[in-house]
């Protein structure tokens, strides 16, 4: 069952097309990532989905309600965490959450139980009576995510939820979001331009210049490009190369102290190497393609200049003695 359904969505602002005819659907319980550079149309799409903007044409539905015609029903079914902090600094953590509960018409008992439970989970119960202005960036983020979840939303929208946070806090925030998602079975829709954040999503749509240029699971998207690279160190590289050619019809390249070749699914291929090669294997390295590679492949450029990717995930396997 799809909980978000977007069809041919277009949004133009004074002559500029921010979203240019996108269609996608998100299934209930899924985590869905919207990945793209700044200005690609991510925030515009989220704003339409959460009823803050009306589309120029096309339709958007959340939880079965049209975002334009039944905005109120949509708003009751969603929780939001915006790009910038939207807490009141002059209120305490507890007061911010209470304000939210009143807006969502929760009854007093439910409100008190829920706030206490949620503050304990985000580890801010001890600080509940402190003014939010005394909180660090990471604490504010946690409080905001907690707030977005207070009223039991069906979908939680997160617009660049970890922007401006240090790596350690980012990891904490993600752990928290994912635990919560499993616990309450809610759907998470997020936008990000961090590759590693998109990586943990069930499915990703890559958006550029207002268009979705690819959509699928991270694995599916990575298959769009050449496949995995396997690096082998063996007792006799030349013999290994000829064996690979004979057994698997694979032409490996000789590097200075190892050999390398590309295969479709490297992780599934590694066991076959051990079965098929008679030459002693010293080590096996597998380099998975990253979403960065996918983005470059599709658009011909990197998602952002100051990319902090460490050059891909290296999976290392060693064979004992």
């Amino acid at each position, binding site marked *: *069952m799809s909980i978000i359904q977007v069809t041919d969505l277009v949004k133009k*602002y004074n002559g500029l097309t921010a979203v240019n005819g996108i269609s996608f659907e998100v299934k209930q319980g899924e985590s869905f990532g919207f990945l793209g550079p700044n200005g690609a149309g991510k925030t515009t799409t989220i704003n339409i989905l*959460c*009823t*803050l*903007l*009306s589309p120029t044409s096309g339709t958007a539905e959340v*939880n*079965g*309600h049209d975002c334009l015609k*039944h905005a*109120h*029903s949509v*708003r*009751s*079914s*969603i929780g*939001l965490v*915006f790009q*910038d*902090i*939207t*807490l*009141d*600094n*002059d*209120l305490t953590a507890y*007061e911010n959450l*209470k*304000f*939210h509960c*009143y*807006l*969502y*018409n929760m009854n007093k008992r439910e409100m008190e139980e829920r706030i206490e439970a949620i503050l304990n989970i985000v580890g801010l119960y001890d600080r509940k009576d402190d*003014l939010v202005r005394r909180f660090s960036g990471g604490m504010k983020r946690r409080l905001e995510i907690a*707030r977005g979840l207070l009223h039991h939303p*069906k979908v939680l929208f997160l617009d660049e939820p970890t922007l401006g946070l240090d790596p350690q806090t980012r990891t904490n925030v993600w752990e928290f979001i994912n635990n919560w998602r499993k616990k309450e079975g809610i759907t998470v829709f997020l936008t990000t331009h961090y590759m590693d954040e998109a990586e943990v999503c069930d499915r990703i749509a890559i958006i550029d210049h207002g268009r979705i240029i690819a959509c699928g699971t991270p694995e599916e998207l990575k298959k769009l490009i050449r496949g995995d690279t396997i690096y082998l160190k063996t007792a006799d590289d030349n013999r290994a190369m000829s064996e690979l050619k004979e057994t698997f019809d694979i032409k490996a390249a000789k590097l200075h102290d190892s050999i390398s070749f590309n295969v479709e699914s490297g992780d599934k291929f590694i066991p076959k190497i051990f079965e098929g090669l008679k030459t002693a294997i010293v080590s096996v390295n597998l380099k998975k393609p990253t979403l960065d590679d996918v983005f470059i492949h599709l658009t011909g450029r990197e998602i952002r200049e100051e990319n902090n990717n460490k050059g891909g995930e290296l999976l290392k396997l060693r064979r004992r003695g």
Partner: protein
Amino acid sequence: MSVEKVFNGHGQRSRTTEVMFSYKAIYVIISREFKRFFRQKGRLLVTISRPLLWLFIVGTGFTQMVNMPATTSYKQFLLPGIIGMTILFSSVFSSISVVWDREFGFLREMLVAPISRATIVMGKLLSGAALSIVQGMVLLVFSPLVGIKVTLPGILAMLVLIAILSIAITAMGLFIASFLTSLEGFNVIMNFIVLPMFFLSGALYPMNALPTVLHYLTLINPLSYGVDAFKHILFEKNGALGAEFPLFLDIGLLTVFSIAMIILAARSFERKE
């Protein structure tokens, strides 16, 4: 087909309808504004000291200089004007908090909640007006110090008039605030709307003593009618320094103005890009 079944079987998907006003939301918006008012120490201090500076320093100074009819001193003349000024500044400041909320993102927390725009406008209107009413009424405490006696019916009458003016000015402020996208506009509003409104309201000098052009400007200023109404209640005699319009006209015009501004503000917030 199975998708259809699941869809219909889910009670949670039933449509919710929007009520015009969510009272819980209005209550919590008001309670937030009061908390903020008492927590922002600087604002609190300015709010308390500004009318007192005018009344006891400017008022005392001008009392020495201006030849007044024996019945009224300048300090006495100034009291209704300073109550009007306090309401003006407080109401505009409260309504500008919408821009503040927009700049700091908090407005979005309210805009995506399942409440109507009218609820947000009403919450802001009532909180802004209530803060102004409290401040206006507190100033009545100083009336004996400038030699004005206020009776209990007088206090009740002032409460009603202060409330009407507070609602009118807050609604006007909200209408203006709906156009402002950043706080930079605030100084412009202060300079070109708020201060002229104060100077051209009969708060500091009688309106009919002004040259024609300025006099006409006072006639389109809602604050003039509020200050004029206060003069009806606070001054025993309606001499040269007393009220200049009939009280029913003051109340009538302010009421019409308030309603118009509330409608305009609500409409203006309803807009979507």
